[in-house]
């Protein structure tokens, strides 16, 4: 099992002191190498869920098991290193660092894993996504599609078990959407990496054999239950 979520609760504090429930997930899982699209409307908690899976946010309660270890129970320092080693993230806006070349952006993904950088593998990844000739180009000299491909290569740089993609085609023209999704899916398949793509696009989700709707298994009201019971 690549990803297992159990009894995840998440709410945010409101200015008035009340808490706004966002997530209430009893169970969710993704098998090793499995690919799934997670559909959800804007403000539905998709990004919060993704941040919890990535260990960027911690849930109020529950377990986030990635490759057999509970991310939510780890101290932050360990969680950061575990994220670097086990999880790849492709952001909606690519988030390449402008000061670094394409190759350096991929190397940057390796720099924090504690395993050291593997320049050869970084080159191979960029060649895999068709950017072998653009290794030393800075992001501003790359097209939008090329930038997204660098982001994919960077996400896979540490040979993760899970790749999280947050609306990866939201800023890409329709002609390139299919190409990028194919690239992400094929590369993940090639490296046996589980893929969870969060999107609000039915068209993008339609390419996946497994499509989960967040609203089907997210019950934020569950967050209130302990309070209601205690009241």
């Amino acid at each position, binding site marked *: 099992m690549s990803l297992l979520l159990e009894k995840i609760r998440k709410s945010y504090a409101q200015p008035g002191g009340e808490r706004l429930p966002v997530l209430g997930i009893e169970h969710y899982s993704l098998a090793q190498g499995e690919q799934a699209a997670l559909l959800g409307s804007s403000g539905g908690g998709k990004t919060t869920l993704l*941040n919890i899976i990535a260990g960027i946010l911690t849930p109020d309660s529950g377990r986030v098991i990635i490759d057999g270890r509970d991310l939510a129970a780890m101290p932050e*320092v360990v969680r*950061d290193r575990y994220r670097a080693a086990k999880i790849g993230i492709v*952001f909606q806006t690519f988030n390449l*660092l402008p000061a670094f070349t394409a190759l350096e952006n991929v190397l940057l*993904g390796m*720099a*924090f894993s504690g395993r050291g*950088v593997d320049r050869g593998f970084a080159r191979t990844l960029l060649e895999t996504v068709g950017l072998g000739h653009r290794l030393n180009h800075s992001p501003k000299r790359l097209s939008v599609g090329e930038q997204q491909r660098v982001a994919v290569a960077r996400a896979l740089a540490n040979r993760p078990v899970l790749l999280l993609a947050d609306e990866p085609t939201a800023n890409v023209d329709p002609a390139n959407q299919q190409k990028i999704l194919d690239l992400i899916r094929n590369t993940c398949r090639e490296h046996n990496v589980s893929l969870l793509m969060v999107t609000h696009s039915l068209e993008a989700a339609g390419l996946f054999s497994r499509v989960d709707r967040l609203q089907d298994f997210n019950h934020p009201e569950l967050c209130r239950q302990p309070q209601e019971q205690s009241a």
Partner: protein
Amino acid sequence: MNLLTIAWKSLRQRRLASSLTALSIALGVMLMVLVLVIFGAVNSAFTQRSVGYDLIIGPKGSELQLVLSAVYRMQPPIENLPYPYLEQLRKDRRVVSAVPLAFGDVTEQGDFPIVGTTTEYFENEYMPGQKFMIRGQRIGKLFDAIIGAAVARENGWDLGTSFSIVHGGAESEDVHDEKFTVVAVLAPTGTANDRTVFLNLQGFYAIAGHEKPIDEVEKRLRDFYSADPERLAASLQQLQQYREAIAARAAAPDPSALPAPVSPEAMKEVTAILVRTRPETPFDAISLSAELKKGIQAMAVNPVRPIQRLMSGLIGNVQKALVVLTVIIILVSGVGIFVSIYNSMSDRRREIGIMRALGAGRHHVFGIVLAESALLCCGGGLAGWLAGHGLAIASAPWVIRQTGLLINPWALNSLEVWLFPILAGLAVLVGFLPAMTAYRTDVADALAS
């Protein structure tokens, strides 16, 4: 790829702001290095045992003036001592060597000080372990001269050059009739000797107008030897014989046919006497100095002590003030670095969020910002240090030519050892707050921004 590389890339991204802040540090450090190099040279020139002598003996007066005039040739002489006193000193068992100096005149060209002395001056070390290197021959004739390296260079003089001297100092227009000839040139010594013209002491006495009226000499001898009637009597006897010889010549039918009477020693004077005492008994110098202090005739001065007092009392304070000023400049530059990095933090919030999302820990982003500060401070400092020494190296020949100060641009001041630890401390100081901002960055918020 390590934190320093990442920090360096971030700085390159903001290359204009980074360059300007590093430049401000570099300028501050460069100024500090130049201050240290220049004061190091001044310090070295003035606090070394610039003469290979234990004592300088001269008339009673200012100790500093005696040293500045006799060793550094920067001040007019105080007064003179009678020549017989030199002979008296030479007979003292504590004295190994007593070298007379007579000065007060300058060259007509270049205003270089004239010093009448004996060959012993060139045989002795001019500074411990350093002997004069002389190109040419020893002073043999009355009007032979040996010139310092700077005199030769600036006046374009060499062996065989003939020159005139001006009586009494640069402002005087009383040019002596006698012509002197360069017979030797000294190699550079980095001391006042480089800017000095040395004459045969007897030649110095032979210059017309240097001999004082007999009555004036007599009065001075009476004052000088007031407590020593035996020596006074001997000197007065010499004066009396000299007076009679002059009168006899004047009374002759054709005085010009008779040779001029030879001046007795009592008529001669020296401006200062450089004394070496027995090296095996260092107390000799102290006892001689203390003995002279009690009397009214002369004073003996350690050539180092008055200059050390001057250095620590005045020049040292000027140096401290300039160093403090450059430290303030560096601190202000440090504030500039703080402002530059701190202002960039809001623009870099997302960048920090991305790095955190890629697995960078809080300590990583803290380290990256601190490394940026260190690169700016230490990189700028290194550039300034190299520029300072580079400028010192480039300008050293010019400074030496202009001032005679021997600049050693490669010499490191002990304060420079502290430069980089201080810069590293400054980097931590100015980088800490921005680094803490990076440390505290909320990843989810930063990515959403």
